[in-house]
């Protein structure tokens, strides 16, 4: 069967020659039709970080509509092909996705929405020269594990996001606003991000000491932990009014229940990553009112999209109308990822040439729906550092069970605050 197929037939031969002839006679026509920009995408559409990727498929569909007629850059019209891959929120699947996007699909530009994927795609993209833009993980978490040096950066890979230091600064700023005995009990999940946050010099301990807080550290804990009675016993013995640290929502539910059971009544609680999403707060029932969180983006950010012209408010409204679900913070960054990518393509002399596109990203300064993304003026090469504000979850007054209110904007004054901070009332 196969040998028969492989044999050249007379008809096939003539057809082939004719096609070549046409192509040779009309070279401009043929190349015009093949100018396609291939944009690869890797993100956590499912898996443990699925809630970070929950808005992504919707965002990608909006972009697909936007790019349906192609892109006209410097007078040339390009077709745009999107190659969307799910990295399942895990490192090994990310490696497969990376080789798929870089080696097999040979994308011209890769957009990455997940930390694991940023590591895997980043390494391969730099060796193969594929311009890549990533986000959705604190920039230190992508930059230093890959051996980045702030004065050198990476040749083809770029990242924009807030830093983990900004999370801590915002927490302490918010603790300052609540009347407490200035005793802070902390516990941190034992992973690279947690170790960074609890670092004695660079992390929370130094910041708390500088601001005159008494620190009750209970150290790191393992990801499989489901019982916090020991840490809580120490907090209770020290009469900590403030609880802080880093854990996922799966830890926070038992932690918070055990805090209540123990009779400890903290006045403020800010945990990095634990309640970025309203679903995590809703899981606490009535006991989520007043929790403090870092805020990357809300519909109240006074920015608009450079792609669609929508305001942050309009983008969130469109998502809520289409899906019936409450907006989440990644909605803004997921949209901004495409804004940055498309702005870079527009800036490059030849978007298909990686050595033209990479410098175009590196010299970019674009206003997006999450605020300015500035690679050009950044102190860290290859990284655009965005900023955060401090927020507090409050009992919803409208259609949602909880609303996220911005209560401290010291690090990003252009964002208006929309509520006064309240102490926890437990």
């Amino acid at each position, binding site marked *: 069967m196969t040998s028969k197929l492989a044999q050249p037939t007379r008809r096939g031969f003539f057809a082939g020659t004719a096609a070549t002839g046409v192509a040779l006679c009309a070279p401009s026509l043929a190349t015009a039709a093949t100018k396609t920009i291939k944009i690869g995408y890797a993100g956590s559409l499912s898996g*443990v970080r699925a*809630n970070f990727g929950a808005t992504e498929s919707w965002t990608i569909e909006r972009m697909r509509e936007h790019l349906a007629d192609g892109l006209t850059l410097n007078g040339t019209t390009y077709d745009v092909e999107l190659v969307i891959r799910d990295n399942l929120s895990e490192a090994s699947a990310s490696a497969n996705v990376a080789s798929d996007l870089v080696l097999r699909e040979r994308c011209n530009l890769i957009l990455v929405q997940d930390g694991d994927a940023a590591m895997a795609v980043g390494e391969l993209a730099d060796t193969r020269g594929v311009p890549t833009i990533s986000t959705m993980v604190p920039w230190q978490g992508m930059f230093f594990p890959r051996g980045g040096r702030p004065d050198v950066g990476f040749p083809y890979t770029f990242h924009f996001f807030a830093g983990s230091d900004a999370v801590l600064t915002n927490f302490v700023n918010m603790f300052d606003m609540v009347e407490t005995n200035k005793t802070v009990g902390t516990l941190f999940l034992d992973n690279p991000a947690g170790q960074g946050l609890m670092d004695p010099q660079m992390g929370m301990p130094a910041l708390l000491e500088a601001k005159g807080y008494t620190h009750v550290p209970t150290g790191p804990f393992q990801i499989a*932990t489901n019982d916090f009675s*020991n840490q809580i*016993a120490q907090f209770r013995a020290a009469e900590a009014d403030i609880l802080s640290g880093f854990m996922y929502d799966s830890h926070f539910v*038992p932690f918070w229940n055990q805090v*209540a059971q123990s*009779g400890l009544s903290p006045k403020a609680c800010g945990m990095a990553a634990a309640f970025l999403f309203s679903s995590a707060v809703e899981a606490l029932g009535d006991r989520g009112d007043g929790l403090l969180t870092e805020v990357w983006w809300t519909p109240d950010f006074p920015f608009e999209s450079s792609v669609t012209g929508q305001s942050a408010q309009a983008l969130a409204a469109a998502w809520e109308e289409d899906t019936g679900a409450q907006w989440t913070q990644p909605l803004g960054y997921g949209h901004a990822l495409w804004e940055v990518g498309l702005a870079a393509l527009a800036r490059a002399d030849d978007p298909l040439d990686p050595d033209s596109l990479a410098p175009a990203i590196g010299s970019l300064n674009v206003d997006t729906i999450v605020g300015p993304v500035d690679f050009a003026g950044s102190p860290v090469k290859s990284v655009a550092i965005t900023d955060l504000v401090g927020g507090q979850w409050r009992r919803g007054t409208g259609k949602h069970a909880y609303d996220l209110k911005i209560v401290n904007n010291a690090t990003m004054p252009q964002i208006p605050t929309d509520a006064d901070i309240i102490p926890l009332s437990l």
Partner: protein
Amino acid sequence: MTALFELLLQGVTLGGLYGVIGAGLALTFGVLRVVNLSHGELITIGAFIAVGVTALAPTVPVLAVLVLACALCAALGGLLQVAFVERAMHFRDPMVPMLVTFGIAVILRNLLVETAGADLRGLNVGGLAQASLQLGPVIIGALPVVTLGIAVVVFAGLAAVIRHTRFGREVRALSDRPDIAALMGIRVARVHVKVAALAAGLAALAGVLLAMRASVSPYSGVSYLLIAFEVVVLGGLGSTRGAFAAGVLLGVTQVLSAWWDSNAGLLYVHLVFFSILVLRAMTGRLS
């Protein structure tokens, strides 16, 4: 001293929960001689049924939700036994039913992700999850005490059923000498289905208690399966009373070890498990 006593109590209540997690697995292993790798998924499904029912009908009392989740999960367990596991058990190789349950686990987990999403869910039991009891200087959460109470009742009930009912006699006969039990006219396949259903019901109970205490996601099953295994192996394969004791031992170990090493997690639990296994191997009492 009070603090230490509180921690000890915490450990015992956590251990009761661990015992319930292991009870169903002990039963399937003891009677069916099947290592049921889908036990973790049955736990999560039980929890998700409870969460789903509470979301759809918030007025239904918690106890009714618990019973409903156990009943539905028991039906599912029985169905899986009839449709797949029983057939796989006809092969002499114990690997076959184990692989079948592994496959069932993968399918159940992904079905759960598809239908319910990957989100974490907790079961809101009103003020119970945060309430505490004060006995002199000792403060202990109400929910852990209730959990322990349920665990004790369940284990006592299980022991009574196995010791004093006709079904229990059949189960014991089947567990000791399946071939002779069959000769005596016990309908083996029917007992298998009942046991599988009972085990799945216990899994659902564990799932609901876990969802009250913390939260579950479709991916939680795997980590609970590991605890279930340690409970079963420590408690003596197939012994439900042993499972309870083993659960308490592991729970106390976990809570107390965190006293001097907060970052230990389950390390000392696994170490205790390992040491006892080594001890048993040295004294020649491995099974």
